[in-house]
């Protein structure tokens, strides 16, 4: 695989320096996310909707955590709470030891939503550089960064196109590049690969784990795909609906290197089965395994 390099960037080199000391200490500032008893209630006309209740979750700096669960179990809601797009109804939520609001103001995270959400009047390049532009990054730096990110998501030939000239999967890749633009130390991603074809999906999964390793970014990743969650994550958080809550947290223990050969390995299949059982709430017949 010809991986486009981000090795020249400062954050990437620090990531490489600390690559050996991956398991970070558990003091509160080295935690990317700390949720204690977090609940979220949406008041509606027909009564209160309990979207989340009693969420206990920590994400260490540099850790990759997936959220998986049936539709409506509050995955997007949890992500929005972390991003300070909604506020918690109860409990305590800290991002890098700060309030979610402060973390947002400090630009501690990058986010990719469930929909691409590109600005239709901006080209691919214009969309990728939007956060850089808003935060006053110089034009030359921006151009270099856009070229780097566009090649990362395989859209180098499309930087001058407008979103309405792209397929849904291509739009989603632009959104991913935009989320990565400022090399955040926390990445929040809501089913970012949902609209992609299998080939691109597997390629970007590999790239994402590599980027997360290189930059030392923690990732909170929402997905509906069990294999994807297992392949990417250090831990898989299994959730269930009505009311939305965490039912189980499964460490994958698959090590740092996520290569294509991992997809064929027995440990991998074992973890997939474990997550599936946790999702279904009961052991799954081995014959059902793919």
């Amino acid at each position, binding site marked *: 695989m010809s991986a486009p390099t981000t090795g020249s960037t400062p954050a990437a080199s620090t990531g490489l320096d600390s690559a050996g000391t991956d398991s970070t200490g558990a003091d509160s500032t080295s935690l990317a996310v700390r949720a204690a008893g977090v609940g979220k209630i949406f008041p509606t006309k027909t009564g209160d909707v309990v979207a989340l209740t009693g969420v206990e979750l920590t994400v260490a700096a540099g850790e990759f955590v997936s959220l998986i669960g049936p539709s409506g179990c509050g995955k997007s809601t949890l992500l929005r709470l972390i*991003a*300070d*797009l909604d506020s918690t109804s109860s409990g305590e939520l800290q991002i890098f030891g700060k309030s979610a609001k402060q973390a*947002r*103001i*400090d*630009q501690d*995270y990058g*986010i990719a*939503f469930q*929909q691409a*959400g590109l*600005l*239709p*009047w901006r080209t691919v390049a214009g969309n990728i550089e*939007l*956060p850089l*532009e*808003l*935060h006053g990054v110089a034009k030359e730096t921006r151009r270099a960064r856009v070229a780097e990110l566009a090649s990362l998501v395989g859209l180098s030939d499309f930087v001058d196109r*407008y*979103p*309405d000239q792209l397929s849904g999967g291509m739009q989603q890749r632009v959104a991913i590049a935009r989320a990565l633009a400022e090399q955040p130390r926390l990445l929040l991603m809501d089913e970012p690969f949902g609209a992609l074809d299998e080939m691109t999906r597997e390629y970007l999964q590999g790239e994402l784990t590599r980027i997360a390793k290189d930059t030392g970014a923690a990732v909170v990743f929402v997905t509906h795909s069990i294999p994807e969650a297992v392949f990417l994550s250090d831990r898989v958080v299994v959730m269930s609906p009505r009311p939305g809550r965490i039912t189980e947290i499964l460490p994958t223990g698959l090590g740092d290197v996520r290569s294509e050969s991992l997809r064929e390995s027995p440990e991998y299949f074992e973890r997939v089965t474990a997550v599936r059982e946790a999702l279904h709430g009961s052991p799954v017949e081995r014959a059902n395994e793919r």
Partner: protein
Amino acid sequence: MTKSRAAALWGVVGVLAVLAVWELYKFAGPAEGLTVGAVEGENGSGFLLLPRTNDRAMPHIWDMVARLFQSTSGGSTPPLFVPVITAALTTLGIAAVGLVIGVVVGFVLGLLMQRFRLAEWGLLPWIVVSQTVPLIAFAPLVASIGSQIDRMGTPWPQWLSVAIIASYLSFFPVAVGVLRGLDAPDRIHLDLMRTYAVGYWQTLLRLRLPAAVPHLLPALRLGAASAVVGAVVAEVSIGMRGGIGRMLIQLAGQGSSDPAAPWGPTFGSIALGLVAAGTIALVGIGLKNYRRGEATA
């Protein structure tokens, strides 16, 4: 490209159809019209069902056009189209000033109403009510205030009153369009701006204004048309000389002896409307990247 060519073609067909209907009715309709319930010997009584088609009431189209090239009022006066163009340009200038004032005022009001809900509640009803005040009641008021200011020492030319009255009509669609347009961005885009922790002004500049363009263009088109109509009507009602409105009234007064003449300034004011709409269309072409995803151009 073929789409815009088809649109142009249909535009031409529409104009030709109007001309054809005019001439057809003139040919087939009764010369003195059709009046019901007229009392014998009493002039102007009864109810005119079908308009008259004699040359005084309905000149031939070719006569109207030919009249444009005959001298304005006999003798060595220049052909009619010269004063028509001069008057039209005068009115166009005044309408443009009115439009600019209207756009500025409309923008400020729209911005305020979008930013502060309280301002919307407080202002929007008044803005709507303002448009129900008839122009002929409002125009003399502006004119008399203007001449008072003038008398107190600050020069206040009559055309400024006309421009103010034109802006009074044109600010309304702009204010409403700005309000609607600035509220147009999708939730996901507003969320995105929030994640970037940028303030109101950056969000306005990078998101709300660009997203408002598809709402602003129709508003501007309406505003421009209103400014032209407002300027023409205001000229007449405050008696300003030099514009197309005044010229129209003057020539219409001589209509019985020179029936084709008032059609000169009529064409002139139609041309004004076209210029106004065309200018906004050009603005729209310049902003075409902000109209992506719009259903129809």
